[in-house]
């Protein structure tokens, strides 16, 4: 009987979250987030190429959406998409995605690069992207993220297309001084290998 009660409560909670009766013209978080799933995957866990959003910290999500909206962060499509949402709607989606569990992307990686990747990560990245990049700390989650997206992101950071946070920039530059560009690839394979 206890479990039936629990079921009812869960259903009720789900239903209430859905209907968003509080504000007549504001869609619920689930309604808004559902429209992103065809690109970003069901509940924000992507299965290919496009970045996952699940479990990303709400603060990072909100800042990122605002950067897309203002044009501060360049994009192929997200600049056009982000302009469609109010700050309130962005905040709703930020909380929603932060609560989703990330299903790491299944993707091919090169095993021979993992040791170097792990070593570099510990030395230059772990301080901010904790627990091998799994912890939703600063930035998004790197572990289990689309490797192709990570490659595009690092390219943009290095070319200056995307602004790098200044302490991260220091670390990345330090790394590139001491190693060569293959270090970036090794890091990406390391993050992608965490499935």
């Amino acid at each position: 009987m206890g479990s039936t009660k629990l079921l009812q409560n869960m259903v009720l909670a789900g239903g209430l979250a859905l209907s968003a009766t509080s504000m007549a013209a504001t869609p619920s978080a689930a309604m808004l987030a559902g429209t992103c799933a065809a690109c970003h995957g069901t509940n924000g866990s992507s299965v290919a190429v496009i970045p996952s959003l699940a479990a990303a910290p709400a603060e990072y999500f909100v800042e990122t959406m605002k950067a897309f909206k203002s044009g501060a962060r360049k994009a192929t499509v997200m600049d056009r998409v982000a302009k469609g949402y109010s700050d309130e709607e962005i905040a709703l989606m930020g909380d929603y995605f932060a609560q989703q569990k990330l299903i790491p992307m299944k993707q091919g990686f090169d095993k021979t690069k993992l040791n170097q990747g792990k070593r570099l990560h510990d030395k230059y990245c772990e301080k901010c992207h904790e627990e091998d990049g799994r912890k939703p700390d600063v930035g998004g989650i790197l572990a289990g993220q689309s490797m192709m997206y990570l490659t595009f992101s690092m390219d943009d950071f290095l070319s200056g297309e995307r602004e790098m946070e200044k302490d991260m920039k220091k670390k990345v530059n330090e790394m590139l001084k001491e190693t060569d560009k293959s270090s970036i690839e090794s890091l990406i394979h390391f993050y992608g290998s965490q499935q």
Partner: protein
Amino acid sequence: MISRRNFIKLSGGAVAAGTLVGCAGGMGRSGGGGKVVVVGGGPGGATAAKYLRMFDPSIEVTLIEANAKYYTCFMSNEVLGGDRNLDSITFGYDGLRRHGVRVVHDTVTQIDAAARKIVTKSGATFSYDRAIVSPGIDFKWGAIEGHSAEAAEIIPHAWKAGAQTVTLHKQLLDMKNGGTVVIATPSGAFRCPPGPYERASLIANYLKKHKPKSKVLILDAGDKFAKQGLFIAGWKKHYGYGTSNSLIEWVPAAQGGKVEGVDAKGMAVQAAVEKIKADVINVIPPQKAGKLAFDAGLTEGDWCPINKKTFESKIHANIHVLGDASNAAGMPKSGYSANVQAKVCAAAVVDLLAGREPGFPSYMNTCYSVVGDDHGISVSIVYTFDEAKNEIIAVKGAGGVTPSDASAEALRREAHYAHGWFANITNDIFG
């Protein structure tokens, strides 16, 4: 603690038992529950069935779909030139079964809106509290002289994917170097407005590599088309568009492009001005809502009028229509639209079954098109609802097409993202 996965399994079991005693209108309206029958397992119907179960596992959901396998039209243009195979656009319904959807393969012949009962070809009947219908499109065979379902066996439309896609692919493989491929576009509203031009691009891409003396001739029923500027820029870059040996030639209606008749046996089309012989002919017929929509009396003109907040039919209460068959203007008829409409509809059905006012909707559409190797473009629009006018309207200041000055790198990324979209949308629908 019950994990979400166990929770779904658990209630899936409960549903199986519930079917035996289920009665229309039964199951407490206040605490969820209820019986929904979904007809059509394309992007519209399959997404609706899955999300109903995700939103409220106490709802009993039956999906009736004619075929055991679904072939997506999206990315089928990549099958034509051999860039991908049919398997990669083939999907089954086990994923939906795992969500506790009861999947029945049968063809619905009748919907009795008053009795809330659905009848199938095999004679089975299904009662419902609410029905969701997403039957896709049908062709208006009478519109082009000489065109018929039989003629389309010789000159495939390939506008419903599967056997037709394979036939067109084989014809392209068999064609001589130096041959002409005609693509005739439909008049009126049709599924996937950029589709014919993506098709022209990818066939040209195949010809460029394998049969470079050939060409694609687009005979257009209109004078402009979706993402026109971006397509033409891509054609200039890859296929010599506008030069004397262009792989693609486009003839708008104003210059006699509209096809008025076909001669499948003679391999010719009658355009407004001249009769044109070709080696491969792909006439895409004008379209209307799927047959079931007409049989069930859900149409007004060619499409089904709906309340765009809930997708409930304006003609029959308790029946919701979505996807290509519905008139959901301003959204285009696309897989993305159908997938999003299904979620809006499923959320509304959950609320309505529980006696709540449906929440405020949000909609989105994106159509990626692959123009060539490493060259993708997109149109992406965020929509909201105008309650007073019952209209779906684009959010002002947002959305739009790939900028015309996008870098080669941005276009390369869009081609990759198009493939990422395909993987994610099909997983969201069928997974």
